[in-house]
């Protein structure tokens, strides 16, 4: 369960990226975070990842207040989350395979397990043939899918995806959404920030819409609402 309680984030330069945000996401839910460019979607995800701290308010994940997490506990908390970053954040000097394997090495998986699971996840996102390419040898969409594979490989209990289809053509995007939906059906909570109106409208899931840091809509089975 994820809870945002009166969360406000003001960046050091005085910009208020989120103001007084409240919501609760139950385990196993599928939630779209939408909003115009600069609305605060990525900020919300960074807060959830404890990459940045809220200026006020508290964020509670599985009954733990993130602000009470000790430095040492943070890595273990993050392992619960699988994250697809908007800027991918792949290790530039490792191949697609190694990038995904690295996420498993971190949690201490055995080499055997790694050899079994990594190729499976890579071919799930349609990159079976590109396993040994370095990020700079991959197209934008391919990099994005490597990021997704890395997020999924450890079977996280929460999948957070920031614009995971931004660099994908509609067909590939739909395939990716099918995978994410499948993951969600197996019990993983999914939080996905996106601009893809067609996807949001097609999936009919819960939608949290932001405008300039304010949560303006929280709708079950919602659609993408174009602001004036």
């Amino acid at each position, binding site marked *: 369960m994820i809870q945002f309680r009166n969360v406000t984030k003001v960046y050091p330069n005085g910009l208020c990226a989120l103001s007084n945000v409240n919501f609760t996401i139950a385990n196993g839910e599928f939630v779209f975070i939408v909003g115009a460019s600069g609305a605060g979607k990525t900020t919300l995800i960074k807060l959830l990842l404890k*990459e940045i701290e809220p200026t006020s308010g508290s964020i509670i994940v599985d009954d733990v207040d993130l602000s009470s997490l000790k430095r040492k506990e943070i890595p273990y908390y993050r392992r619960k989350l699988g994250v697809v970053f908007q800027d991918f954040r792949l290790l530039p000097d490792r191949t697609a395979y190694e990038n995904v394997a690295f996420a498993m090495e*971190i949690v201490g998986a055995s080499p055997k397990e790694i050899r079994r699971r990594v190729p499976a996840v890579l071919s799930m996102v349609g990159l079976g043939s590109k396993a040994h390419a370095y990020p700079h040898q991959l197209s934008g969409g391919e990099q994005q899918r490597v990021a997704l594979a890395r997020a999924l490989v450890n079977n996280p209990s929460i999948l957070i995806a920031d614009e995971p289809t931004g660099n994908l053509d509609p067909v590939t995007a739909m395939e990716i959404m099918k995978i994410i939906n499948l993951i969600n059906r197996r019990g993983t909570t999914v939080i996905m920030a996106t601009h893809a109106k067609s996807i949001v409208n097609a999936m009919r899931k819960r939608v949290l819409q932001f405008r300039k840091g304010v949560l303006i809509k929280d709708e079950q089975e919602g659609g993408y609402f174009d602001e004036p």
Partner: protein
Amino acid sequence: MNLRSWRFFVYHGFQNILRNRVMSLASVTAIMVALIVLGLILVIVVNLDVMMKEVESKMEITLFLKDGVTDSERSSLEKEISSWQGVYDVEFISRHQALEEWKRQLGDKGSLLDGYTGENNPLPDSFLVKIEKPEYVNTIVEKAKEIPAIEEVNYSSKVAEFIEWLARTIRLVGMGLVAVLAGVAAIIISNTVRLTVYSRRREIGIMKYIGATDWFIRWPFIIEGLILGVMGSVIATGVVALGYKFLLDRSSYINMRWGYLGIFRLLPLNEVMLYVLEASLLVGACVGVLASCLSIRKHLRV
């Protein structure tokens, strides 16, 4: 930390090096350069040290005789001393000669000594003993001290004192220089590693965000630092050894010209290089590891 993790760290330590060839090469070069200088200084100091000790001990020894030693005793003593191993010349200097010499040394003020003549002469008779090789000095001094007719053994002089001081100074300055250069090496290496880490701060950040623990991130860097340090020190020792070998091969010429002074004798390769290897391995490894540790710390705060 189980074995698997360690294999992982070592593997990634090496992989880091191979993947970031430019950086690694730069680091190794910096370490190597610093350690070459260190080695050079060490070689010079070790050699100078030994040389100076030789000069110091290659002194003439003066044996002062007791009063009332008869001429026959004297000449048998002279023969005995001449027969000692390492002695190549024994010269008798009578108290009268000694007085003359003293007067000469005083120059202007020589007249002060005019009061001393004949029986008045306060100086003792003495032998001036010249020694072949410095190794013999101590034995000879010991032996001489045991002879009852000998009052006192004196093997120092103003020049000897000065040379001693010079040796001490060179040793001191040399050691100081070595210390400074070790510091220099440390700064350079830590800078290099800091740059390496700095240039990978994004990677470090990524690792953190996908749930790697601090130590998991740290170890490969530390091992990388260790490897770089050891590589640098091995290469540096090799370079210094080659240079020294070259000098040794050439030293016959120098010895030909100045060998009779007996002080320019280079130590054999393995003797010197052991010091250098030890010192540079120690410095290289320690600094590599320390530099890594310090450098990562800052960038782990995310």
